[in-house]
């Protein structure tokens, strides 16, 4: 009997306590082992891990690469696989391989299979795809059933064609279908963090609002504690309420810290939008059980009248080359804006647009407002300046050519009042020009209406030996 079959057969339900261990908010960056083991000692009924994030930027979705290193990803997967299989409890992993598209899922499954082979593990595995079929997305565009999730261009067919990977974010429903396959381990592509932790409780009959609110709080593990951390957290769900407790004795889940977590990376702390509906937190209550544990209850769940999925896509922008150089010269600093504009104009002459050699040259001026996304008035109090210059061009050679010409003209640019005629900038290393890899951008971040007949989130199950 598989771990999920045993759990479903155990008679567990809302009148009994369900212990959920959240092992990682981003698997692959190093799961703290001591707290994970402390969590296992509490005999959880299942273990959940989130493996993804959109924060790291469009490169990973676009390129199919993982943001985490293979070595630590393998180490973390090994830790949670052994932990779950030894305890014979289900393991659920969401947003495999950072972005959860087919290449990310495939690489994660490759690591899992190789660990299983090396360590002689056998188990039943269910996987859930998250790639958005392009034809379906185009149909929704023509039906006018998509909308942007903020300031981004409305969807169109060319945008769909240009994207290198497109994923839809699955909710609880896709996990429930995987649960029906009675596996030991579920590995999902792009998924809502909450669905990873809310699906099994819902399948066992626990109230949706409590399961969802619990999932929302524990998906970042002990980040909701003081001090916040990355250690495993245990939630104990019972009826319409749950208790959260960090598995690191030095981290306390207090009513204030748990309540404040609702703010984190959310545009609205009182409403959480999920594919199946909206979680309302106005009535949520947070009460101290003791100085390290907090009881939570009172959230409401409103099912969606029209189910939607969030769709994410990234497209190729070009190849990047980077130049890093500093200056300590006050005359350079006084004239920096004019210097940059002159150098830009000179570089442009070497790479005329009529050659079809399109490129972007971007100056990040640290010590001169380089961090700010918004226009800032500089106070002129800086003592050093960093020119971090990037070129994004059609290919690597072109990007390198542009950045190396930029380097030389920046070094020797003459301007009125110049004293340091040996060179305007200091290079920290040689070569000063670095290849910067491929540049992508998020081209799709839209909500798409979904129908029950949509063939989304396909589940496959089989044995791993």
């Amino acid at each position: 009997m598989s771990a999920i079959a045993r759990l479903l057969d155990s008679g567990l339900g809302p009148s009994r306590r369900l212990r959920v261990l959240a092992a990682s908010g981003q698997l692959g960056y190093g799961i703290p082992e001591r707290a994970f083991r402390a969590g296992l000692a509490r005999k959880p009924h299942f273990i959940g891990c989130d493996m993804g994030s959109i924060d790291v930027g469009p490169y990973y979705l676009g390129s199919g690469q993982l943001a985490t290193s293979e070595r630590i990803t393998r180490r973390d997967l090994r830790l949670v696989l052994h932990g779950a299989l030894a305890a014979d409890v289900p393991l659920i992993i969401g947003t495999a391989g950072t972005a959860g598209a087919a290449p990310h899922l495939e690489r994660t499954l490759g690591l899992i299979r190789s660990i299983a082979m090396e360590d002689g593990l056998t188990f039943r595995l269910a996987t859930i795809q998250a790639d958005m079929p392009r034809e379906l997305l185009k149909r929704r565009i023509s039906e006018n059933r998509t909308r942007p999730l903020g300031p981004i261009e409305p969807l169109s067919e060319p945008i769909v064609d240009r994207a290198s990977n497109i994923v839809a974010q699955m909710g609880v429903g896709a996990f429930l279908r995987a649960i029906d396959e009675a596996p030991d381990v579920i590995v999902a592509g792009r998924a809502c963090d909450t669905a990873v932790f809310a699906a099994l409780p819902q399948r066992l009959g626990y109230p949706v609002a409590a399961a969802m609110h619990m999932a929302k709080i524990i998906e970042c593990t002990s980040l909701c504690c003081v001090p916040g951390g990355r250690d495993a957290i245990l939630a104990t769900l019972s009826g319409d309420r749950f208790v959260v407790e960090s598995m690191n004795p030095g981290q306390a889940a207090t009513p204030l810290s748990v309540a404040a977590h609702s703010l984190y990376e959310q545009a609205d702390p009182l409403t959480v939008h999920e594919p199946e509906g909206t979680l309302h937190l106005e009535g949520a209550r947070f009460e101290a059980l003791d100085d390290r544990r907090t009881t939570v209850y009172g959230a409401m769940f409103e099912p969606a009248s029209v189910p939607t999925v969030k769709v994410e896509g990234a497209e190729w922008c070009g190849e990047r080359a980077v130049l890093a150089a500093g200056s300590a010269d006050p005359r350079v600093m006084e004239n920096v804006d004019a210097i940059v504009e002159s150098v830009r104009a000179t570089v442009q002459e070497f790479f005329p647009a009529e050659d079809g050699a399109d490129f972007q040259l971007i100056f990040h001026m640290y010590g001169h407002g380089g961090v700010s996304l918004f226009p800032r008035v500089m106070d002129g109090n800086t003592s050093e300046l960093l020119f971090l210059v990037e070129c994004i061009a059609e290919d690597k050679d072109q990007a390198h050519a542009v950045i190396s010409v930029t380097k030389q003209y920046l070094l020797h640019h003459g301007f009125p009042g110049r004293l340091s005629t040996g060179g305007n900038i200091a290079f920290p290393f040689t070569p000063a020009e670095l290849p910067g890899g491929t540049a992508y951008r998020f081209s799709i971040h839209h909500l798409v209406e979904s129908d029950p007949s949509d063939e989304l989130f396909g589940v496959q199950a089989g044995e791993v030996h």
Partner: protein
Amino acid sequence: MRLIDVARVVRSKNAGPLQLTIDLVFPDDSTFERARRSPALTPEAVAHVYGVDPVTVKVIEFGVANAIKIVMNRPIIAGSPGDSDVYGAQQHRPLLDVIL
């Protein structure tokens, strides 16, 4: 009093790649009360500090955590060429000097 001297947390972060959220968490009810009544933290005042259109700024109170949340559009989609803060984690600076 300046925000930097009274707030317990002033943090910025993306809320998805299209939006930026700034959380101000205060140490006690009285400081929170002062902050929520302050004319320096209205959408218009915050928009002025950042040089953006006030209709794109939301200010949300979250009393249960003594917190105020500000939500703005990112001027550029996170991670696109020309971005300067992929996580949006360093955009709180202009608020630190605001006088409540």
